[in-house]
């Protein structure tokens, strides 16, 4: 049997500083330092490459569990009658389709900064038999500067997208603006796992996931970025504070799978 230090070397080191945004227009792309303009382009490239194999990789990496997370996330939403929903970073439509199934009357604007992802989503919408495509509209847009009017939407959803944004706080601010008073915010995102499980989670993330990316999608780099970006994002309480700072009430979160991901919710105050 190997000795302890060798085991630790085997499961590799993950730098875990969790600050996400610094001054001087410098930010991070995973563990690499880049300028903010570079980050947006790099993220775009990651998802343009990833689009076609996205769904396959999600299933492979999470062994199908991401479906359960999304089911639970949408199932726990309180969707008003005839609701107007904005699903940001909605790309291939996973959340949008669930929203349509969960509410017979809601209309969903699916928005994503990346057109190839939206194209995949549109294709999937046409082949899913129980989705009425006229309840969906597909808009290519930047979450930090949304082309939507103030006080328009009843519900803002964003699933596994906000950690890729250069300024998550700006996204929350925009979400506040476009929501109607009384409107709800619900964000599903990777978060910080329970510390007892961190070694196994890190080992899996850094040793298995990039290799899966190379084998299934010929793209190790995009999945290396994925696991690094998770560690750079604020933890559960840090993110809650950002949401509170932007004016939301009743801010709370719920951990899924021991904190691998979390659902953060908030409500825009009625005047």
């Amino acid at each position, binding site marked *: 049997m190997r000795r302890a230090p060798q085991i630790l070397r*085997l499961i590799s080191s993950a730098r875990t500083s969790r600050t996400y945004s610094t001054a001087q227009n410098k930010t991070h792309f995973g563990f690499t330092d880049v300028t903010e303009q570079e980050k947006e382009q790099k993220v775009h490239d990651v998802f343009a490459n990833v689009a076609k194999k996205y769904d396959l990789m999600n299933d492979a990496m999470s062994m199908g569990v991401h479906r359960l997370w999304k089911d639970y996330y949408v199932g726990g939403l309180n969707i008003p009658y005839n609701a107007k929903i904005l699903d940001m970073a909605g790309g291939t439509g996973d959340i949008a389709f669930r929203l349509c199934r969960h509410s017979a009357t809601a209309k969903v604007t699916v928005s994503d900064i990346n057109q190839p992802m939206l194209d995949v989503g549109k294709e999937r919408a046409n082949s899913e038999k129980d989705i009425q495509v006229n309840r969906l509209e597909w808009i290519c847009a930047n979450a930090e500067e949304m082309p939507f009017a103030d006080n328009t939407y009843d519900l803002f959803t964003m699933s596994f997208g906000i950690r890729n944004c250069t300024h998550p706080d700006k996204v929350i601010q925009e979400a506040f603006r476009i929501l109607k008073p009384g409107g709800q915010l619900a964000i599903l995102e990777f978060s910080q796992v329970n510390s007892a499980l961190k070694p196994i989670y890190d080992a899996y993330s850094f*040793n*298995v996931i990039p290799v899966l990316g*190379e084998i299934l999608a010929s793209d190790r780099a995009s999945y290396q970025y994925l696991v690094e970006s998770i560690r750079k994002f604020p933890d559960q309480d840090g993110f809650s504070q950002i949401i509170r700072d932007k004016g939301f009430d009743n801010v709370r979160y719920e951990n899924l799978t021991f904190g691998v991901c979390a659902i953060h919710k908030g409500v825009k105050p009625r005047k």
Partner: protein
Amino acid sequence: MSTKLYNTHVPLTPISKVLMGIGSAAAAITDPRRGDMVAAMGETTAISPILENLRKRMESDVTGRKLLQNKPRISNETINREYLSSLPENTLGKKYAQFLDTLKTSPDARPAVKYIDNLEHLYVMQRYRETHDFTHIALEQKTNMLGEVTVKYFEAIQFGLPMCISGGIFGAARLLTKNRRELLEINLPWVIEQAQNARFFLAFDWENHFDKSLESIQKELNIKPL
């Protein structure tokens, strides 16, 4: 995990290497057209003792030692396609130009080496990858499945790389019955004898012999054509 030693270097942790070896092997067997997976499998299974053995054998050969010192590359930069095409019909250079033209490819089209963590071994692996085409030409084996398997057996015997050994075995398993028979009855007995008697191909400076006839090169390498 080590730091990057060269441009295309992707250092992997030991666990990642094992997983990559198994996964790329599975991917390559399922879809042999995935050149990146064949290359990855070759690199992750070429463990240090094997590459070190190859390096030592190169070093104990006069020409091989020069190769290790100068580290010449076969790339779009170092290969002049026009010059090669202008050479007489039966020369190595002319045959190489025709080889590349028929396959509509170029020396740079091979994947770069990524997973080797030692600069000396990096050159050995790179040299293997860049001279594989010459091995095809010297043995006069086409790049169809039968020819590839024949060449893999040659490389397996001369070099001992795990990728060549398993490529030979699994590649042979995928052959159609009549090709398999040809392999077993004709190609294999022949190529095994060639591999044992021929000069060590990795220590040969192919690029200095483009103007020689294939026949004279085969004599120099001690290859008797099929």
